[in-house]
């Protein structure tokens, strides 16, 4: 074991970790925006809303993230129409391709989590809202969604960790995220074990912080619930 190499390259690894966090944060925001309408479509009574959302979720959860990221980054360039379009400056960049692929992927998983949470809201509360004369939209905004977000929180915490780990795939499309940076350093130093283990420690540290943050958030959002502490 060569600790000096690890110490010498730590600044670079941390630089990679910053890109990892950036990718995760942006993907989660875009994915979350996708997930809400998808989840509402999934619980809709209209089949033409429910069915496309189900197909979307099924396809993105049933295929590997690696295939999805390759389809976006390498695949789209196959079409002349894409290369000629105004979107090409974006779709050419591995950075945006990674975010698009990650967001589409985490959007599907998050939609499923939200759907489960919406359906887990006690029927009595929904009926009470109706009895108060609230419209479907109002009861959704005031009663169902706030309730569902809290129910979804633990599962969503897991999804955030999975997204963090999935973001390592950005390294396969030349991005210098934490894993990508580690692979670059290894190409120069040829110390794969030391550098990969060091990168692993950084991932573990980030995971630990995320887990603690979600624990705090759960406690805060559940502070009105008896016995939640």
């Amino acid at each position: 074991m060569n600790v000096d190499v690890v110490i010498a390259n730590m600044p670079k690894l941390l630089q990679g970790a910053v890109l990892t966090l950036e990718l995760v944060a942006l993907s989660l925001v875009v994915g979350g925006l996708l997930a809400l309408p998808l989840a509402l479509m999934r619980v809709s009574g209209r089949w033409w809303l429910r069915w496309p959302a189900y197909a979307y979720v099924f396809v993105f959860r049933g295929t590997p993230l690696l295939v999805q990221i390759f389809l976006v980054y390498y695949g789209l360039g196959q079409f002349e129409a894409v290369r000629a379009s105004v979107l090409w400056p974006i779709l050419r960049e591995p950075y945006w391709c990674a975010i698009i692929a990650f967001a589409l992927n985490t959007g599907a998983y998050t939609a499923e989590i939200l759907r489960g949470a919406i359906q887990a809201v006690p029927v009595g509360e929904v009926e009470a809202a109706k009895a108060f004369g609230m419209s479907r939209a109002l009861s959704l905004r005031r009663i169902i969604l706030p309730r569902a977000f809290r129910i979804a929180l633990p599962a969503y915490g897991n999804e955030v960790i999975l997204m963090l780990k999935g973001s390592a795939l950005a390294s396969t499309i030349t991005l210098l995220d934490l894993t990508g940076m580690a692979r670059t350093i290894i190409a120069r130093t040829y110390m794969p074990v030391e550098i990969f283990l060091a990168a692993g420690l950084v991932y573990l540290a980030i995971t630990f912080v995320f887990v603690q943050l979600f624990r705090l958030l759960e406690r805060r959002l559940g502070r009105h619930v008896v016995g939640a502490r």
Partner: protein
Amino acid sequence: MIDLAGFGEQLLLGAAVTVQLALAALMVGLVLGLAGAVARLSGVRAARALAATYTTVVRGLPELLVVLIIYFGSSRLLTAIGESLGHDGFVELSPFAAGVVALGLTFGAYATEIFRGAILAIPKGQIEAAHAFGMGRVLTFRRIVLPQLWRIALPGLGNLFLVLLKDTSLVSVIGLEELMRKAQIATGFTREPFTFYLAAATLYLLMTIVAMAVLHRAERAAGRGLPQVRGR
């Protein structure tokens, strides 16, 4: 229909490797998971700590990194062992073996938690009854706990297997010619990445559908003795 330019057969061969890899890693992972769960619930503090460290560390690392660490780390380790035995020269695990170990370790870490939950879900009265019948701890585990474990753990393990099936694509990064790598190779020849990655995605989806159907049947079969599960 999409034109695969003669690479269709190659993709199917790759898919066969993917299935073999997934099943081999499943076997390793189930053994590790069961051992991990027993260790986590054991009275020996060192075993508990070891199992807890294993699941925490492996579940916190990206699967891609686990694959890379096992592939490069094992060659370092095996070469060192070889040298100490008087064999000089580079020794390494094949990408397939490294993939089985890496994915098995990952599956095992999650399976440990599922098995642990399942063991705890078995009513305590049954264990006490077994003890009252004069069964020892090992016999109780084999005759009472283990047969029920399967049924309780199956839904969780099924989800893990679906994740494992998709994670096999990561082993393409260390050069194993499974489905994903075959698609990459075909792309290199034909310059049609979208076509081949879409074909690969379709095959993964089909494998997922088959796995889901098998798991559904397995769950029905495992729960056939229970009135509330029947007729689902």
